[in-house]
């Protein structure tokens, strides 16, 4: 929902007057990018986890609806999802949901969120077989709590270990990669579903780092704190063009010791973070992690020797992937 203040701000920047559009095509006046100001929505529900510590599926669905309604400015979430699919160029085509199960059980994208998104997509008219939940391999998907399915009459779920990788190696900057055929051949658009974590090398792993799961040898991109590896990877045209929206899972997170499951450093931010600008999302995610680390008496990521420098690299003029200046990010918390 756009507040009067937001409306005035956007009118002042000319976004409403010019009828500017985001990359998803959604009208900027009610949603994603005020001129030069990418929008990031953080939706929270403190009661997301029940007394047994498990996520409440109904509350997760409601939180997703609130996040998407706020982000798109569409009160009716089905209409919002129709626009997301249409503007993403995926009408009657395959919509991919890229999860992150690398951290193993306990710190992977939650199946309850993935399935809620798949349900909303179906309500918006996407055929079940045109929804493809995917990650690196079977193990990663199972870590999320998902079940493998290749039957095209139902929502599909399998990894790049099944689909394979392109033979041709592509180069951008210092990165040489071979992409998953799921990204290059199957999906018309992909919704990015990372999970917020501390990372022993890159500092933060979230929206941009999740793209490591779409190439064959991600280990080749880890040098120097994954910088410029993460930025280079996100700059490849196929990623720029197909990764349309990020719905970040910040319902559970690790603030130290990541990217693996560290129950001693587990925490429940109980939030979803939505946006199109992955640089802006990662900048916001970094601030969330730093705040928690400070609360816990831990060093900043800079002091710990692993500042997420890749975020600034992604924002520089060479990569031009998005905005990392907090003053130029329109953050809405609901």
């Amino acid at each position, binding site marked *: 929902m756009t507040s009067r203040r937001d409306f005035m701000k956007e009118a002042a920047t000319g976004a409403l007057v010019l009828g500017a559009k985001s990359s998803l095509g959604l009208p900027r006046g009610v949603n994603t990018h005020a001129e030069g100001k990418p929008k990031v929505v953080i939706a929270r529900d403190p009661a997301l986890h029940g007394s047994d*510590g498990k996520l409440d599926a109904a509350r997760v669905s409601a939180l997703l609806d609130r996040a998407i309604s706020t982000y798109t400015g569409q009160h009716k979430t089905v209409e919002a999802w129709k626009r997301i699919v249409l503007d993403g160029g995926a009408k009657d085509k395959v919509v991919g949901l890229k999860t992150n199960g690398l951290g193993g059980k*306990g710190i992977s994208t939650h199946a309850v969120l993935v399935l809620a998104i798949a349900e909303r997509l179906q309500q918006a008219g996407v055929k079940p077989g045109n929804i493809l939940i995917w990650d690196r391999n079977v193990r990663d998907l199972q870590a999320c709590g998902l079940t493998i399915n290749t039957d095209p009459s139902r929502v599909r779920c399998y990894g790049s270990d099944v689909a394979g990788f392109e033979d041709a190696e592509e180069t951008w900057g210092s990165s040489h990669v071979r992409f998953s055929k799921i990204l290059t051949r199957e999906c018309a658009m992909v919704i990015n579903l990372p999970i917020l974590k501390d990372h022993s090398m*890159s500092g933060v792993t979230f929206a941009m780092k999740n793209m*490591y799961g779409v190439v064959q040898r*991600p*280990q080749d991109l*880890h040098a120097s704190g994954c910088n410029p590896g993460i930025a280079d990877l996100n700059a490849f045209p196929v990623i720029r063009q197909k990764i349309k929206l990020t719905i970040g899972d910040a319902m559970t997170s690790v603030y130290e010791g990541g990217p*693996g*499951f560290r*129950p001693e450093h587990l925490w429940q931010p109980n939030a979803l973070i939505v946006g199109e600008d992955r640089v802006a999302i990662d900048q916001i995610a970094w601030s969330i992690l730093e705040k928690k680390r400070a609360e816990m008496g831990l060093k900043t990521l800079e002091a710990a020797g692993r500042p997420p420098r890749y975020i600034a690299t992604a924002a520089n003029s060479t990569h031009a992937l998005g905005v990392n200046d907090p003053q130029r990010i329109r953050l809405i918390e609901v």
Partner: protein
Amino acid sequence: MKKNYLMFVVVLILAIGAHGALIGCKKKGSSPFPGSGTLAGWEKSSETRTFEPKDLWQYIDGDSEQYIQAGVVSTSTSDYKYKGQLEAVVDVYTMSGPDGAETILERGQTKDAKTIAVGEEGLQYAQSITFRKGAHLVRIVAYQANVESAQALVALAHGVEANL
């Protein structure tokens, strides 16, 4: 000639023995993972997977770098279940020497860790135990916590320790 040959054999045997002691191998082919039924309530619920340093990223992504720098030689992992409910994973990192195991253990230590008498040095958190013995670093993590989990993890840790 014969004397030299005997000397060579003795040196070779000593060298093999020293290497075995250094990396803490019990015997060739022995597994550190307790089998189902060997520890009360615990069941080994998956096959053991083993990763060489060059493939460790497939298991722990960027975390692999700190283990490689500390001299990891091999990593094995297996899932466990306690009384059919509590799920846990046991990771055994075999380093090139005890220093590597010590480095990793110290690096992961935080204020809320309690010391525990397992291996040569052990740390316990609410849902995990990490200990070192010789060149081995063992990490045991439970995915849930209940009233029994802390004690059950200690029993599992001792079971692994006995096999190292």
